[in-house]
């Protein structure tokens, strides 16, 4: 079992969600985060003074997946989230020790 984490541009969330739904992947968790990579921050001006805002708002998406599905899901997310401009984000995959569905008690792959 794997955890797929993606940091994407906030306006791409709908595209990614629809792409995953279309592929019958029905679960995800979304968090609003801030961060930066190679994309710098931006400048805001208040009363003539400029403020450099380093952290850029992003959305973090987390999806659970079977080993076999990982590559397919990662590709789906990347294609939907890509704008071609700097700041598109990253996706990483980590191993999961265990998963349990709270309502039924199912574990392992049945819980995904």
């Amino acid at each position, binding site marked *: 079992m794997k955890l797929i984490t993606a940091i994407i541009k906030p306006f791409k969330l709908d595209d990614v969600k629809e792409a995953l739904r279309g592929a019958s992947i029905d679960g995800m968790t979304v968090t609003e985060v801030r961060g930066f990579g190679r994309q710098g921050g931006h400048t*805001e*001006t*208040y*009363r*003539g*003074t400029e*403020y450099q*805002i380093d952290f850029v708002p992003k959305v973090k998406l987390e999806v659970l997946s079977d080993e076999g599905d990982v590559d397919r899901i990662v590709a789906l997310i990347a294609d939907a989230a890509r704008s071609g401009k700097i700041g598109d984000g990253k996706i990483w995959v980590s191993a999961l020790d265990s998963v349990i569905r709270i309502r039924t008690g199912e574990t392992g792959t049945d819980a995904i």
Partner: protein
Amino acid sequence: MESGNVAWILVSAALVLFMTPGLAFFYGGMDRSRNVLNMLMMNFYCVLVIPVLWVLVGYTLSSEPFDADFLGSFDFAMLSGIGIDDNGGKIATIAFLGMFAAITPALISGAVADRMKFSAWAIFVPVWSLLVYVPVFKWVFGGWLFQRGSIDFAGGTAIHVNAGIAALAAVLVLGKRRGWPHEGHPPHSMPLVMIGTGILWFGWFGFNAGSALGANGQAAQAFLNTFLAAAAAGLAWIVVEWRRDGHPTNLGAASGIVAGLVAITPAAGFVSGAAPIWIGLIAGVACCYAVRLKTRLGYDDALDVVGVHLVGGLVGSLLVGFFANPLFFGPTDEGGLKFLEGIFYGGSAKLLGEQALANGVAMVWSFGVTFAIMMALKKTIGVRVSAEDEATGLDLAQHSETAYHSGGLG
């Protein structure tokens, strides 16, 4: 007093009261989210303590008798002897003036943001009100400065220049915020700032037009002037911004509006025609540049009280020397003293000179006494929060409150 006049004064009093919460949001939105409640509290506190102080001794010392030179008497302490046999005119006026007394110290809160101990503020407000607001008010309205010929319709000198220079004195004693000016923070909620601005403009109609103390032509003119000056100043500010910095901003529009409102305050019931537009345009441009002085001169006036209220008030008050129209020096004025016309209405430079003197005197007194009060507080209970509290945020440190509990996390 005629019912119509009493009614208008009562409505104006309510409008001016609304300005203190308006100011609270105007400043609060500009402040950091970890200090917004402290900013709101500093403002609301003024409207808690000043009304009581006002009826106890503030009104009588600042206003009775009208022609006392330097200070009033204690004759009407606790409003003793004042009833409603004049159809309520006196009480309505006292209430109205009390709202001004409340908002004036509140103006200073914007300068001392993010680092002042609330206990020090709690003492500062009533003490400042008694030692600075009351005497300056007396001198400007009926007292020696007025008798020399200076005029101030709704408190450009007595309130805005007064509070503006006091803010400067206060921040010089308080010191700069940690990291200023290298580390800055943008306003945490521009929507709150705009709400505050709208409330201020709305309330200012009471502030200015209500100062005619009657529902009459002068009040109507003051109302219109308030409308025009704010618009002109807001426009001027965003045009300057657009050309100088590349973008017109909400904060610029809001600041311009307030600068225009401040500038028209001393002039509201004394000018007409295009004068309010000129006053607004000049104040808008002047204040847009004046807010940069703090970085250049090194004083941390957090939310630009000096740049907007001191400078805006001075601009408006001096322009009265040019634009004062004798059309308004009629029977609605008390005391029967002859007023001086502005330069553009055939007057000499005498009015301008008296305006300059009145503001100069007010500035010297206000700066000196405010500085002394702050130093006394500094040497006794201290005026500044600890470095740790400044970093944590005053809402939690001083009030044990948090403004924003995120979403479902309660």
